[in-house]
Structures are given as structure tokens and as C-alpha cells.
């Protein structure tokens, strides 16, 4: 990486070289996770704050585990019990936390661009843990890492992303991430679940999952937001499952080597048949495991003191 990034707001902040660098580091940190004492002192003395304005269990735990394995101190800003409930503005909250002396802040927010706003207000490194429908860059990195582990080079690979693209930050990050790594991406969904204008997106689009299933190297399923009440995008979840779900019959038509991925949490019986979710080429559990190592790499790159010390620092654990 020639020009180190200060924040990770979007996967678009990283070019292919930078992504590959993080994925290479991820491999090293994955090894740390397998040790008896899975901890290195790489971020000793650094403080990271979690600022989660939207519910999250897996992403927050994943970041927390990553930070602890790097020996960073962490503090949690619990939105539900905090000054936010008393009407404090986002900017005041962020400035208050920074005044306590933090090196990094990991943000999840239901509004697109919230981490971009925060990055303008604080000196600390800002890491986007998901903002509205916009971006979820560490999810894209862990997906790229997982895919690369199984398929090697992603150049020319066909990634089929299925489901609710419109409301998905995972889709927006993964489209950019996979295409930056040389893969070809096809989006599959009814128009009601696609962004209104895909002009400039480096993707193919089809409404017919069956037409692309046999050429997919990766079938990436997105979560249908069951809690998205009040507006109808498909007549019933059953109809969605019939037309756009990965059921057993469709899954059997995937190539032998193809990977099935999902960012979680899954709706078994909606995006994917429960049985298919447990097939050996369905990598959801592995994605979660890789998430910790990827986030270690990201925190290390953004908060660590020097990239050339990587191997040495890992050794002194």
C-alpha cells in the first residue's frame, strides 16, 4: 500500500493493491487466532470506541474480538442508554467520545454517510461498520478473503448476488470489492428490490436466477429484511423464495466448485433452503470466522504504527 488510508468509510477507499495487502495481512492474523493464546500486542495502548447507532450483534462482537486480540483497549458507547436518548447530537456525542482520547471509532448507523460526517469532525480513524444502505466495507473484505481462500485469484470469476440489492449496504460494497478484484458481478432480483438507477454500475442485471445459476462461481445471497414493514416489494416471501431463493433444486445446478455465501443473519426458507445452508460449500460460518481476522487487519492498518513491522510484532506474542 503506497498511500495509507486514514479511515475506512467505503470499500472504494481501497484499490486492488490495498485490498490485497489487507487480505495478505488477514492470513497472518488468522494464524494468530489459532494460537493457544490468540493475542498479539500490536495495538497495545490504543483505544477504540464502538459507536453503534443501529442494532448489531455479529459485527460488533467481531470487531470487539479483533480489537482484543490486538491488545487494544475498547470502550462501548451504548446508544440505547446514553446521552443520545437525551437528545445529544451526533456531532456532540462524537466530540465527547474523542475528548476521552481515542485512536479509532467504529461506527454503525442507519443513515448513509454517517461515518463520512464523523470523519470530518474527529481526528481519530473512522471505520465504517455499516451505514444505512450505503457501505459495509469490512463485510466486503471478509467476503473477498473467504472467496480467495477457496477460489484463489478472483479474476474472471462470476459472482451472482441475489435478493434485496436496493436496501443492501453489503451489495454496494461487494459489487465494488469483487469487481475491483477482477470478478464479474451479476445482480439478480425483481426491479422492486434493485436500486432505481444502475447507470455506471459495473454489473450485469437479470431478474432470472435460473439463467445464471449454472455459470456462478459464487452465489451470494442477501438477507430479505423481514422487518421492513409498511412497504411491499414482493407479494409474499413464499413467492420470493420460489423465484429468487436458493432452493435445493437450484443449488444442485451450481457448478461443483461454486461457493454459497450470505452475510447473515439468514432467513432459512426465504433466501435459502435450510438444507442448502448446511451444505459444505455454504460458507456462512467461515465468513464469520474470517470476519475477526479481517477486522484485525483493518484495525492494524489504520491504527498500527508501521506496516513493515508486521511479522516482527506478530512474533513477539
Amino acid at each position, binding site marked *: 500500500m503506497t498511500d495509507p488510508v486514514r479511515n475506512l468509510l467505503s470499500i472504494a477507499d481501497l484499490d486492488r493493491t490495498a485490498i490485497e495487502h489487507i487480505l495478505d495481512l488477514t492470513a497472518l492474523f488468522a494464524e494468530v487466532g489459532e494460537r493457544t493464546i490468540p493475542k498479539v500486542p500490536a495495538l497495545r495502548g490504543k483505544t477504540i470506541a464502538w459507536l453503534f447507532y443501529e442494532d448489531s450483534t455479529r459485527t460488533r462482537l467481531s470487531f470487539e474480538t479483533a480489537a482484543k486480540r490486538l491488545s487494544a483497549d475498547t470502550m462501548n458507547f451504548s446508544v440505547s442508554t446514553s446521552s443520545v436518548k437525551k437528545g445529544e*447530537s451526533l456531532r456532540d456525542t462524537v466530540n465527547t467520545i474523542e475528548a476521552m482520547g481515542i485512536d479509532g471509532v467504529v461506527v454503525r448507523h442507519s443513515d*448513509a454517510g454517517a461515518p463520512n*460526517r464523523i470523519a470530518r469532525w474527529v481526528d481519530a480513524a473512522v471505520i465504517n461498520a455499516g*451505514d444505512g*444502505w450505503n*457501505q459495509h466495507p469490512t463485510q466486503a473484505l471478509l467476503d473477498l478473503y473467504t472467496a480467495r481462500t477457496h477460489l484463489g485469484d478472483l479474476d474472471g470469476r462470476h459472482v451472482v448476488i441475489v435478493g434485496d440489492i436496493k436496501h443492501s449496504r453489503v451489495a454496494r460494497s461487494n459489487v465494488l470489492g469483487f469487481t475491483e478484484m477482477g470478478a464479474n458481478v451479476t445482480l439478480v432480483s425483481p426491479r422492486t428490490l434493485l*436500486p*432505481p438507477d*444502475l447507470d455506471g454500475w459495473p454489473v450485469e442485471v437479470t431478474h432470472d436466477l435460473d439463467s445464471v445459476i449454472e455459470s456462478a462461481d459464487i452465489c451470494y445471497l442477501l438477507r430479505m429484511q423481514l422487518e421492513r414493514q409498511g412497504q411491499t416489494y414482493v407479494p409474499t416471501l413464499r413467492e420470493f423464495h420460489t423465484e429468487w431463493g436458493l432452493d435445493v433444486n437450484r443449488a444442485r445446478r451450481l457448478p461443483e466448485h461454486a461457493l454459497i455465501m450470505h452475510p447473515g443473519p439468514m432467513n432459512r426458507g426465504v433466501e435459502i433452503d435450510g438444507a442448502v445452508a448446511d451444505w459444505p460449500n455454504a460458507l456462512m460460518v467461515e465468513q464469520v470466522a474470517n470476519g475477526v481476522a479481517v477486522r484485525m487487519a483493518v484495525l492494524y492498518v489504520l491504527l498500527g504504527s508501521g506496516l513493515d513491522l508486521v511479522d516482527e510484532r506478530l512474533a513477539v506474542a
Partner: protein
Amino acid sequence: MSTTIVLKGGTVIDQNGSRHADVVVNSGGLIVDVGPDLTADEALDASGCVVSPGLVDLHVHLREPGREEAETVESGARGAALGGFTAILAMPNTTPVIDTAAMVNEVIALGRSTACDVRTAGAITVGRKGNALAPMAEMVKAGVRIFTDDGTGVQNVSLMRTALEYASSLSHLSGGRPIVLAQHCEVSALSDGGHMNEGRWSSSLGIPGQPAEAEELMVMRDIALSRLTSARIHFQHLSTAGSVAMVRAAKQAGLAVTAEATTHHFTLTEESCASFDPVFKVHPPLRTDEDIAAIKAGLADGTIDAIATDHAPHTAEDKDRTFADAPPGMLGLETAFALANTELDLPIEEVLALMSWNPAAIAGLDPAHGGPIVAGGSANIAVIDPDFAWTVSASEMASRSANTPYEGRRVRGKVRHTLLRGLPVVVDGEPRR
């Protein structure tokens, strides 16, 4: 004893054309003389400047009563005077809403000694809630000539028809001046939850969008209502190419419609929103290059009658939020002329028509405002140096708020003096009130 002021060495431009002339006004509010080599008790240098009827803004939010931290009638009027405006029309979406004669009188009283003539629009419906007609007759008697629920459109088509028919029955209360209903065109069922233009940028940024059609459907509907009722309708802040085309066709069909466009809708595009900075959040939202081209064409061919600012001050706290969470709106009064002068490929006579006598006529303010510069005319005058280049800076503005989307932008054209009823309220670019 009345004192006189001469505006020396400028070029007078009004609806009668352009000529080199000095202009003498008196403190009684009248133009006394127009001609070569005039003298008076005092002189203001107008060399290199255009001497024009004062500018008129059909669309400002002065925030008083209710949100005085963002703007007051006084601070808004001062900014207006600095921008060359001698009359501004306050929108009624204050807290409480301006939907009674009592509220109208309060705002007019607040504007009585300010640097600019402050008029107010009244709400079409009680509380701008879109359910029941506000007492229009009493507001007309208090001086209201334009009604609008601005900030939202009247969604109920039947209620809008009733409002048009009722309003067009009230001109006996307004000295024969027409009563105009002004519409913020937006079908909320199609735009609710949207924060920027729906299109390629909203799609890639993951920001919920408002399609152009949300505006266009109501423009289309209200053109039909204009045909049905023969009542006057003014379209506020048109922002899409489709809206401009429909208004052009309606005018060709002879319907009694007028339209305004804001400065930001012909100078900024949706791409600005990629910064996620809510200073670029506004309703209707910033659109595309094609829409800008259509608005410029509409301004050039007379489809759009007036340039308005939709001046919408918001405090720093209100804009220091996420894009979705921040309120829409941007400052405009102190940059409008310069932007029109810089960005529109129109002769200055046409820019002034769009910013002075056309809007004055729509608001029923002529000839007190926007009237010709002739002896006996009203001395509401802007003296503008059209070639003066400057850099926009919120810190130098009179507004209580700083939410200009043009910070740092180089523009051309600056107000040197503004005269309100014969008295200088801006001299050499500095406020006197």
C-alpha cells in the same frame, strides 16, 4: 424636510430599456428626477453600476416566529437588502403557521422597520396540514396576495380545486389584484422518505431518493386544475426538465400559470450530495445537468417568469447531522443575483426582469416594487456592479445561519447600494440597518 440623494454615473435598466442617467430620489420614497448631470443633497457613486428597480424574491423563509436562532425577519431582511432585494415574500411555514390575519399582522409588524419590504404569504390550509381551508379572506384583507402550503404540496386534489375557486373569488378584497395560489409541487406518496434526487447518485450512495415524477405529477395535476377553474396558479421552485416542458405547454395553451426557479436549481447538481454534506440537501432536491439545461432554457424563453431564492436558513446544529437527519434548505438571498449574473447566459436586462419586475407583478407588488425608474416612481432601487468579482463566504453574510452551498465559489456581480423608499439601506456593500 425631505433630503435628496443622487445616484451618479450609472446605467439605468428597467422594463423600458437601458440608458446612462443619474437618478435623484427623495426621503419621501419617490424618484424625483432621471437624467444627465443631476445634483442633490447627497451623492452615491453608481459609476460602472446598473441602477435597477429593487429585486423581488417570491420565496424566502425568515423563520420568525419559531426559529429565531436560524433567522429573524430583521436579519433576513438585512441579507435581502445586501442582495439587492427591496421586497421579499415570507413563506408561511413558521411555528406557528401563518394561517390567520393575526399571524400575518405579526410578521408584517416585525418587518416594518427592516432593511427590506417584508410581505408574507398565507397558508392555503389550516396549519399547512392539507385538511381544511385557512381563512383566506381575512388574510387577503390583511394584505396577503399569495397563498401556499410551501414545504409541502396540497395533496388532496379536491381541496386544491376548492382553494383555487375560493381564492379567485376574493379579488374584491384586494383592490382588484389577483389572488395567486402558489404550489410546492410534490406528490408525497412518491417522495416520502427521500432525501435527494432519485437517480444514479442516490442509487450508488444508498440515500433514499425522490423521483422527478413526484414533482411532475403535481405540476401536471395543477395544470389540469388551472384549466378546470381558470384560477391563477404559480409553480414554486420548478426543478425538473419535465416540469418546465409542461409549464411551457400550459402557457402556450393560454392557462393562467406562472413559475419560478431557484438559483440552486440551475447552479448545482445531485452530484454534490456525494459528500454526504447536508448543506446540499434541499427540497425539491438538486437534480441533473439535463434539468439545469431545461431550467436555463425556461428562464431564457419566458416559461419560467422569476428567479427565487427559497432562502432557507438552518443553524449549524441542524446541519451538523447525517444527510437523512438534517432538514432541507440552503441560504440564497446574498448570492442570488451574483449566481444568476454569473451562470445564466442572458443579458443583464433579462436577469433583472426575472429578479425584479416579473416577480413584483406576480406578487402584486408593482409598481411600488419593480416599477420603472422614472420621475414619480417609487424609490426602491438596487445599484449593482455586474463585473465585481468576489468569493462567497458565509462568515461575511448577514444571515444568522451559514448554510450556503457556495462557500468559496467565485462569482461576478455585487450590490453596491440598495435604496428602500428613498433611504439608503446598503451603501458600498455595507448594511445601514
